[in-house]
């Protein structure tokens, strides 16, 4: 395809600058996003064991529910019967006590002790998986949601511009360059080929991520503006159907009967829980679960209303049963979350997420490489300060995010025995390590910093399964859940040699590669004297 040279030149400038501004935040979003694909297994692995007695069978769920409501009547407002209790949701009956905001609540669970008495426990669902998800959502910024979220939205817009401008740049040479991967002496050419291949192959994925993230950041103002400008009578949400009332002779069905009726109506739908909300005597019920053949707009489950007296499901909120507009919107969510196709698709999203992180990383490498001052007449010039700074920043921020996440995960199984506010501890560890890594990269320079931080990443990641190993003997309050969480430890172990391999190559490059580069340690980066006019003339 032919595009005018001046257009290419302008879009090259656009691409370079939006890339530099947003690249490192996007690296964090993608690295944390890849990990958050498995937030549920991570949460399960990270949640300390419950002290509750084993959950009673689902046939006794209503007996337990009655006992809870007798002692804690406020639980009527929001309680759930869990069909398959798990480590992070270890009770047959759980309920929420509201906090200050809608998203701020405390969860409790109940069971019957061996003597038949009611047991109640504040659930200790681990906060570390949420931290990784928050880093993903707020592109790693240490600010309050209200500040960080609009910044994320701006980054998402820049990211969309970067995709379009990048596409415009490569279009003219797409056919020639697409299958080319010129590994060789010309390092810039090689990184360019890698960067282009990653970008082109995953372009649809990236367009989905950019456009959905703009919505995730700005949906509230979008709706507010549309309500004022577009709609004559406020936002038309359709009718909210009132909670069903029991017919004559109908009673609230027990949970096991509800389960049987739902399974008969929704083959292939795995039921996770039934949620009940009582308000002024009105009972609303919904069922949550997942049919892996359909993607959902929730990250890990779907939910829809249910008549608690007949067990009849109102499927219009379920993927596969929605009206067309809702189905389209459901698709936008599902493509972002990778919530379709089960674990195989989740692993594919992990790979795409890591490839995305690499796309942004290689983008920064290219920026540095194209500003390299090359050896001339046997003299090795000092590298530009801008290239050195971006080198340190790229190494420090990306590896700081990697090490920070590994370090805070490594602390997961040791903290509950020692600390109270786990969420604050996990956040504190992440940011302390992150900022220390950035500082380290600036102190040591990009080359040495990368080598050393990669080895630290290997070490921090190796420490993740240590808590599980200690859990075999229960040292220091550590634990393991039967049959759950092994995959987390195995994944961490598998990542260790990858970091070491990267460190090995970085060191080799540092010692044996071109000396006229920020990635070399042969030539001490002299204080930048500023380019002499003569040099500028030659480099042009």
């Amino acid at each position, binding site marked *: 395809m032919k595009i*005018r040279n*001046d*257009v290419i*030149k*302008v*879009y090259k*400038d*656009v691409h370079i*600058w939006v890339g530099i501004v947003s690249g490192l935040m996007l690296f964090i979003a993608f690295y944390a996003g890849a990990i958050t694909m498995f937030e549920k297994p991570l949460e399960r692995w990270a949640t300390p064991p419950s002290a509750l007695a084993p959950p009673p069978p689902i046939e006794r769920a209503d007996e337990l529910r009655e006992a809870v409501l007798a002692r804690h009547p406020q639980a009527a407002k929001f309680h759930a019967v869990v069909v398959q209790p798990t480590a992070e949701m270890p009770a047959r009956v759980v309920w929420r006590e509201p906090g200050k905001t809608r998203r701020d609540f405390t969860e409790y669970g109940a069971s019957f002790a061996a003597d038949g008495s009611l047991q109640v426990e504040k659930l200790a669902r681990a906060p570390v998986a949420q931290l990784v998800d928050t880093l993903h959502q707020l592109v790693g910024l240490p600010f309050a949601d209200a500040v960080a979220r609009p910044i994320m939205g701006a980054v998402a*817009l820049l990211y*969309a*511009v970067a*995709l*379009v*401008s990048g596409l415009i740049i490569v279009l003219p040479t797409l056919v020639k360059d697409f299958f080319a991967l010129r590994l060789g002496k010309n390092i810039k050419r090689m990184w360019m080929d890698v960067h282009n291949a990653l970008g082109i192959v995953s372009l649809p994925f990236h367009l989905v991520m*950019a*456009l*959905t993230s*703009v*919505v995730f950041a*700005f*949906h509230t103002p*979008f*709706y507010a*503006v*549309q309500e004022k*400008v*577009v*709609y*004559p009578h406020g*936002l*038309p*949400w*359709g009718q909210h159907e009132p909670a069903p009332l029991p017919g004559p002779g109908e009673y609230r069905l027990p949970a096991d009967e509800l389960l049987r009726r739902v399974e008969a109506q929704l083959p292939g739908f795995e039921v996770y829980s039934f949620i009940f909300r009582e308000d002024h005597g009105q009972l609303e019920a919904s069922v949550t679960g997942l049919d892996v053949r359909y993607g959902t707009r929730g990250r890990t489950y779907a939910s829809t209303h249910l008549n608690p007296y007949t067990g009849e499901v109102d499927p219009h909120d379920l993927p596969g049963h*929605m*009206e*067309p*507009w*809702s*189905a*389209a*919107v459901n698709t*936008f969510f599902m493509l972002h979350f990778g919530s379709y196709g089960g674990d195989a698709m989740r692993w594919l999203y992990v790979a795409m997420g890591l490839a995305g992180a690499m796309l942004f990383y290689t983008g920064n490498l290219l920026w540095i490489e194209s500003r390299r001052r090359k050896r001339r007449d046997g003299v090795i010039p000092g590298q530009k300060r801008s290239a050195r700074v971006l080198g340190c920043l790229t190494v420090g921020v990306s590896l700081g995010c990697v090490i920070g996440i590994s370090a805070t995960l490594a602390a997961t199984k040791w903290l509950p025995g020692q600390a109270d506010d786990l969420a604050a501890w996990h956040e504190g560890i992440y940011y302390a390590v992150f900022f220390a890594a950035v500082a380290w990269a600036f102190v040591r320079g990009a080359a040495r910093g990368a080598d050393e931080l990669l080895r630290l990443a290997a070490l921090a990641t190796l420490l993740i399964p240590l808590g599980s190993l200690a859990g075999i003997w229960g040292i220091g309050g550590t634990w393991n859940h039967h049959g759950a969480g092994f995959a987390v430890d195995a994944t961490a172990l598998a990542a260790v040699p990858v970091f070491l391999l990267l460190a090995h190559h970085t060191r080799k490059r540092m010692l044996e590669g071109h000396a006229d580069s920020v990635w070399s340690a042969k030539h001490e980066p002299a204080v930048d004297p500023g380019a002499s006019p003569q040099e500028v003339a030659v480099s042009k």
Partner: protein
Amino acid sequence: MSEKAATVNVRRLDSRHWFGKGCAGVLLGFGLAVALSGLFAWLGPGGIEGGGGKTQFNMWLISPIWAGVLSFVFLFRDSLRAWLWLGAANLAAFGLLGALRLGMG
């Protein structure tokens, strides 16, 4: 700069105007996205009372239009043209939207 180079420069696209064009893309691009999403809400299948699903769909439309305008705004020859053309597009789209609200609301 010689006269010849200057005339060539007028025709050729140039990165100097990035700030003005970028602002036009952000501000007028957003306006245009809202107006076009509104036109779709009124004229698209299902009409303005298309139900909760369509209301969400209409909101989602803002994102690709906004990002699209912001991406292609750099094709304008200079900032003034970007502001004038996008301003005119905004006027036309909001004018039509206003007329629809008067006529059909």
